[in-house]
């Protein structure tokens, strides 16, 4: 049984600068989002325990062919990707349609893992949309995955409770960042990453055309930060202000 991980190529947020509240994208390298790396780590740990292959699926601009090496270095065995410069800015509906088609190419797919949101716009929709398109059960907010024969036992961390559910495979599992600590790839794994099997298709080669874009981003601004500029003359005054602002003294 193979495990599929869906990953999204996003700008490296650590290297992003904000100027006049707008992100400066020039020269920012592309990478995979943090929670996508958690999803991949979960798949690799399950593979190490149960066998099979970890297949990474992704859609994005042509730079994806390079970015995918990060996933291969971190334990992915092979990749199926749509790498096309016309696919550099997909919305959730487009991504879901494309990823569903890529996942259909995996013959023995028991488990499909998504991160709960991408590193850039965090819509949190794609996993659910793909489950719907593939007519598979889906479980979200997952912090632990156990394979038990033909079933999955999944722990969901909810706001006030922890829920354990069972689901038959194949299924779509949407994980949170609390799941694990992604491994650091070794230098040898980095050098071998580019030699792992990959299938690359373009938008024109899809069996069905990608869905029409349904969402347009009108602006993307960092929140305004206004310093309060309060001058404090004593510790008592500081404590009083912190209490007023709700930072201390609450129950």
């Amino acid at each position, binding site marked *: 049984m193979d495990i599929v991980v869906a990953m999204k190529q996003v700008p490296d947020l650590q290297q992003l600068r904000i100027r006049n509240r707008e992100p400066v994208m020039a020269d920012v390298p592309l990478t995979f989002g943090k929670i996508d790396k958690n999803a991949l780590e979960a798949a690799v740990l399950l593979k190490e325990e149960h066998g099979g292959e970890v297949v990474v699926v992704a859609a994005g601009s042509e730079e994806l062919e390079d970015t995918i*090496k990060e996933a291969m270095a971190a334990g992915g065995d092979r990749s199926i990707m749509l790498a096309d410069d016309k696919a550099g800015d997909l919305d959730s509906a487009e991504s879901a349609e494309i990823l569903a088609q890529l996942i259909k190419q995996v013959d023995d797919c028991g488990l499909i893992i998504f991160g709960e949101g991408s590193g850039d716009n965090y819509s949190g929709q794609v996993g659910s949309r793909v489950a719907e398109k593939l007519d598979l059960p889906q479980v979200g907010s997952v912090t632990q995955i156990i394979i038990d024969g033909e079933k999955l036992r999944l722990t969901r961390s909810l706001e006030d409770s922890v829920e354990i559910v069972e689901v038959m495979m194949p299924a779509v599992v949407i994980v949170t960042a609390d799941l694990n600590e992604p491994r650091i790839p070794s230098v040898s794994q980095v050098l071998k*990453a580019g030699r792992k099997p990959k299938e690359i298709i373009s938008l024109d080669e899809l069996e069905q055309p990608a869905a029409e874009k349904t969402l347009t981003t009108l602006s993307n601004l960092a929140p305004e930060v206004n310093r309060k500029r309060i001058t404090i003359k004593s510790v008592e005054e500081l404590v009083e202000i912190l209490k007023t602002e709700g930072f201390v003294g609450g129950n």
Partner: protein
Amino acid sequence: MNFDLTKEQSMIQQTAREFAEKSVAPLVEQIEASHQIPLELFKEAADLGLLAIPLPEEYGGSDAGYDGYVLALEQIGRFSASLSMAIMAHVLGLSMINTFANDEQKQMSLPPGCRGEHITSFAFTEPGTGSDPKQLTSTARREGDYYILNGTKRFITNAAYPGYMGVVFKEAESGKLTTFLIDKKAEGYSTSEPLEKIAMNGGQLLDLYFNDCKVPAANMIGQVGEGFYHLQAGIGYGKLGISAFCLGLAQAGFDAGMEYATQKMHRGTPIGVKFQAIQLMIAEMYEKLEAARLVLYKAATNANKNSRNNPAVFARDCAAAKDIVSHTAREIVGICMDIHSSYGLMKDYKVERLYREAVMMPQIESPSHIQKIIVANSILADYK
């Protein structure tokens, strides 16, 4: 000309950066206070392939070249000069063995070194000489199938960790420099306590004592009289490594300077925004850092071919890079200190440690004038 890193180079850089941030940064104070690098940290670095980046895969290395090595050590150098110095000396030793030793010697010493079970060293300097091979006094005297080693070596990194080291002696009969591969557990081998330094005390420097230390003649690397070539190549690899972590130190100085310049306020405005004097310092740090990085990356890329095929050019490039980058580190960290002013003298600020470390850089692995003599001799050779 293409100044972009390949994806693989970026990923090696990222691997080293993550290791440094997650595993090294929390231990920096402990390493400096205890004068000791935990052996588990070497093992963790080895598991990531960071202790043998340029070594061949057949001996357990990563085969990612000296460019990959420099990119990685720069990242570790941003956090710990002590660990970087230990890795530098280790890779120096492994690289020298890989270049000159026979297969049996390589099989004996390289795989455990690449796995981080052994931490390798190289020793030439003595109390009476640091750069003049003719003043070497330690001797190797042949007795049947063995050599008997006597003498003292000074300022040797990694000398107390388990593993092998390449040591240059004067072969007694011929008087010529000759290198031996020595197990640091050998009878007759001992070390001083770690020497107290101005900084980087986690990267131990020790004196070595050879007192009738008996090693098999089969441990001789190459032939009698080849020690000078081993020294020349070995310190070339060493200078490349030092330059790499000097660049990381310079980057750490730049980052600390920028942090202070953009957070320290004067009447509600950051000093870096308000005062042109600070802006000039920011520009100077940036210009120096950019220039040093270009020189070193070029030297590292060329080292992949020149270290074997063109040793004179390799020695020149490494000497020039070390001279430029080590001074750059000292200058940038000095500017960072000026930006901090008297706050920089306080141990609460990172620049206090960086400053003490940066002062050391031009002095280690031969000082500036020796590097310049190597560069000048290489250039003059083309005018004969």
